[in-house]
């Protein structure tokens, strides 16, 4: 599983960070950083939640 963020869409609402702080981090520069682009399979449910809850639908899961 690979996490892909479309940075043209991302508006740094930080919802994903609230769901999975081990994978997503919005820093003080207001940009989102993906801390782990290939999370373990046991994080899939949280990743799907992040995809669903992103107000900009800027997150995709590949694989």
């Amino acid at each position, binding site marked *: 599983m690979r996490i892909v963020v479309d940075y043209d869409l991302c508006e*740094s609402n*930080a919802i994903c960070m609230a769901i999975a702080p081990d994978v997503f981090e919005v*820093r*003080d520069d*207001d940009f989102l950083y993906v801390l782990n682009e290939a999370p373990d399979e046991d994080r899939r449910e949280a990743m799907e939640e992040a995809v669903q*809850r992103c*107000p900009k639908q800027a997150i995709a899961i590949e694989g």
Partner: protein
Amino acid sequence: MRRSITIVGASLAGLRAAESLRRDGFAGRISLIGDESHQPYDRPPLSKQVLAGDWEPERAVLTPAEKLEPLGLDLRLGVRATGLDVAVRELEVDGVPEPFDGLLIATGARCRTLPGTEGLEGVHTLRTLDDCLAIRAELDAGANRMVVIGAGFIGAEVASVAVGRGAAVTLVEALPAPFARVLGEEMGAVVADVHAANGVDLRCGVGVSTVSGVPGAMTVELVDGSGVDADLVVVGIGVVPNTDWLEGSGLTLDDGVVCDPTCLAAPNVVAAGDVARWTNPRTGESARVEHWDNAVEQGRHAARRLLTTDEEAEAFAPVPWFWSDQYDRKIQLAGRPNPDDEVRVVDGSTDEHRFAAFYGCQGRLTAVLGMNRPRQVMQGRALLEQGAGWDEALEVAAEWG
């Protein structure tokens, strides 16, 4: 075992509900009925990127066709639910009765209009894609003086986009400050300052007496006797829930469809999104919540409720959250402040329009406000979910600096 589910309302809550049913393994028929002819689209960009002209409308689509198709939905667009009889489990669509098995009501809300302006060509509201494109067309055609009535989400964002397009904007708000009802006057004043810093002529604490004229030559008279000339007028004074079609249905209507804490409105009938009124056990407050995130979460919760027995049903108890993009500022609020709450800035500075603030009452944290502070708001939201105390929250915030 439920065989089919009918969802009335093909916007955010309705579509996310349908998607969630499939994800949860529901294999029966799902009918999704919407009165707009467009493919289901997302509304926040209508007062932002689409109005600005940065996005074409297609980009605001909620779920692209290639993801929608595998769900096998019976998508019926451009048709309207016109009646309901809960007792005999019958829906009426464009006047034709049809039985339902499980029903999810997500008909949303429509704009409140300013009395006396109905039918005036130069006066716009903004809720639908067509509304957005009508305003955009006027701006494209050279309209550059705009009066916005109401400094809530829609008004503030429209003002922001219009300023970005070079228009001269007068923003009229009846309350003493923008967002005063939601944020209180102190933080409302900070929002007012942001508008002023971006060149908006903000008139607070004053109502509108009349609006007259034709597109390109409108006049808005205020109750203080002043008048403002404009090419076009946008009214953003709130919404009313779309429940007219439910009169006589057997459901309880009171500023929305009244639901129990699990989103159930009647046996086999649930409601979600702007139209649904329920008591959130977290706050004990019976209310409708008009935020984007609530439509997503409540749509999913209500959909699951239709597949759950009464014994297993869970209450819907979210921490409300919204965001609003105005100029280059992102305003986010998690939780629900009370009018008399203590407000404390815990990070950044209001002068720089970049800060996080806590609202508290009786030793509890009630809400977290951020201006360009998304990380802190989301951490604050987690504190609200845990029911954090005021002192505990301050300790967490002390580490932000």
